[in-house]
């Protein structure tokens, strides 16, 4: 089947559903998801699947959801997306960055289907994007880290030197420094999103350097397990990781995609969906701060929660000047805040972080 035949068959299906308006209204909206990992990964894909379940809980019989899990980025993505489209899905959520060009290609062949791509930056007439402002969460956990460290050394297990991760490191450092001027930030590049063995090694390497509070961008619980053995603390990432509460997991930054999926599917249902670039933070409910446990003193908890609420209300931006870049050059003047364009291309550390940033 070539593109023209594909479009023709989709057009035929549309005609049929228009010709039978009664049926079309009773038919549930078909919502498809494509996942890069298994739904049981307890992290990234698990959180997206929780979002899918939130859509089912919200809309009940009005929607029907399906998913394809474990679809590698690359050669298989375009076929898997086409299969979802041919299966009659009306809206398709592609939940990994590496699906980007495949989404654009498939969306061009199925102009009547709505696509949303997670963490990407390419949009067309029927492709929107959505992402979380995870740096907002890092401001809160960075504050806790700055207050809790005894050694004045905090560590960050980073994944890859991409803007989202650099934002997170900068935000954590800025807010740790704000409450503890003596704080130092150590960064380990794990070059993986999920690899328990490597993440455990990274945590141990940081602790060997005297770090006693670790923030992680990787998605497994392995660093928390290492922290537990040595009586040090850290934070849940991607999912809440509540099984390690109250310590070593003293709080968490987790992805609550359901907040976006419910809103987006609702718009498709009432016909107001537009291909937008959604970049939601704590205020939108996409970025959530897990419960701050009693392992943290009450005044630190109150301070962190107040920061969280200010960010959620839009009263405070985590990147507010004065801020300089690590090379000493000026970035933001006093009171000036970073633009979204600057943030989405961020490729530098702020002043004070001495760790190496691979280019």
């Amino acid at each position, binding site marked *: 089947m070539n593109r023209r035949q594909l479009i023709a068959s989709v057009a035929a299906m549309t005609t049929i559903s228009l010709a039978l308006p009664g049926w079309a209204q009773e038919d549930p909206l078909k919502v498809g998801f494509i996942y890069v990992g298994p739904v049981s990964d307890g992290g990234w894909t698990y959180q997206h699947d929780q979002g899918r379940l939130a859509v089912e809980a919200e809309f009940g019989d009005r929607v029907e959801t399906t998913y394809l899990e474990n679809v590698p980025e690359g050669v298989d993505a375009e076929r898997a997306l086409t299969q979802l489209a041919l299966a009659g899905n009306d809206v398709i959520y592609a939940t990994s*960055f590496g699906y980007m060009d495949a989404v654009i290609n498939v969306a061009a062949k199925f102009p009547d289907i709505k696509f949303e791509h997670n963490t990407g930056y390419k949009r067309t007439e029927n492709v929107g994007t959505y992402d979380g402002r995870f740096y907002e969460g890092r401001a809160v956990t960075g504050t806790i880290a700055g207050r809790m460290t005894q050694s004045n050394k905090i560590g960050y297990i980073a994944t890859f030197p*991409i803007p989202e991760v650099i934002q997170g490191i900068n935000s954590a450092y800025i807010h740790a420094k704000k409450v503890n001027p003596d704080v130092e930030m150590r960064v380990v590049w794990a070059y993986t999103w999920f690899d328990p063995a490597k993440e455990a090694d990274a945590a141990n390497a940081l602790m060997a350097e005297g770090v006693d509070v670790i923030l992680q961008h990787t998605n497994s619980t392995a660093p928390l397990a290492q922290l537990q053995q040595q009586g040090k603390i850290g934070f849940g990432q991607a999912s809440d990781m509540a099984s390690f509460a109250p310590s070593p997991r003293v709080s968490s930054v987790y992805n609550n995609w359901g907040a976006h999926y419910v809103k987006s599917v609702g718009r498709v249902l009432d016909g107001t969906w537009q291909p937008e670039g959604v970049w939601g933070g704590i205020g939108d409910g996409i970025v959530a701060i897990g419960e701050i446990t009693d392992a943290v003193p009450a005044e630190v908890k109150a301070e962190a929660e107040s920061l969280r609420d200010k960010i959620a209300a839009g009263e405070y931006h985590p990147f507010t000047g004065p801020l300089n870049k690590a090379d000493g050059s000026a970035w933001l003047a006093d009171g000036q805040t970073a633009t979204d364009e600057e943030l989405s291309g961020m490729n530098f550390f702020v002043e004070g972080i001495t760790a190496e940033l691979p*280019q």
Partner: protein
Amino acid sequence: MIRLVPRTETSAFWQIATPVMAVAATMLAGGLLFAIMGYDPVSAIRTIFWDPLFGPAAGYSRQQLLVKAAPLILIASGLAVGFRAGIWNIGAEGQYIIGAITGAAVALAAYPAPEMWIFPAMVVAGALGGWAWGMIPALLRNWFGASEILVSLMLVYVAQRIAAWMAFGPMKNPEGFGMPGSRNLQQYPAASNPELIAGTGAHWGVVAAAAAVLATWFLMSRHIRGFHIRAAGTAPRAARFAGVKPETLVAFCLGLSGALAGMAGLFEVAGPAGQITDKVGVGYGFTAIIVAFLGRLHPVGILLAGLLLALTYIGGELAQLTMNLPAATVQVFQGMLLFFLLGFDLLTRYRLTRRVTA
């Protein structure tokens, strides 16, 4: 009591019958697994093996079968030549990755030049890259007696690191907002590997796979080198007396399978995948080992086995979509296939006899 008695020569009948029996046993055991998991086994098997060929969306999935099978067949054709000689290249995945990188490097260096020579040059560069990566275990075996099994396998992990380095470093798309991954070659006409005839799904990789089947068939059954390979595999000492140099065969087999794997990598990166990322290797190099054995190391067998494996991938996706079967079932299926094949393989070399013990 049932006993195994060695056959004096391998059975031609069982050579053909065992893969068929392995497929049938996989369907049975798979069906049993689905039943235990609470799915209807008949409709699961039908969804995986029948619907991609004759189901409602078969027009699309039939052509995807070719796209998915092409790299498997291309790689397995090369591997089988070596396996026949007892030369075990387990690292085709690494040669695939390096071929993708060297091939894409030509395109990225030429970008945005529109010349016609760019794509052919990429194919040559991809083959050379895979060949060079295959020559490392070959030379280490010839010079130092290092096991090509271990060296070729270890080099897969080195290749993966190189791919990650390329995606985050030298090959990163300068217009990609700092995100990893090269330019998308699908969007660069002189370098892309598109569908050749609309509606067939066939890109240059499919053509190359067909050519590889023909060429390896000719090599193995009509060419003196093929005779040497078969001789070295079945009777190494006799082959040596007949003047076959093991060093030459090692270099030839690892070089050939490396070059074919490298070409497969290039066709994928210029076609279905589109770009160099840290995940450019998706396991074709390992799955091709199953394809080679399932195809009895014979070119025609490999062709059929490649299509069958592609069917399990695409049918597995359909089963996920229509029946909510977990994705891991596809991997279980492929694993079962190899397991049963190796099990039934016993019958080609042994026969079962009943002996009544008093």
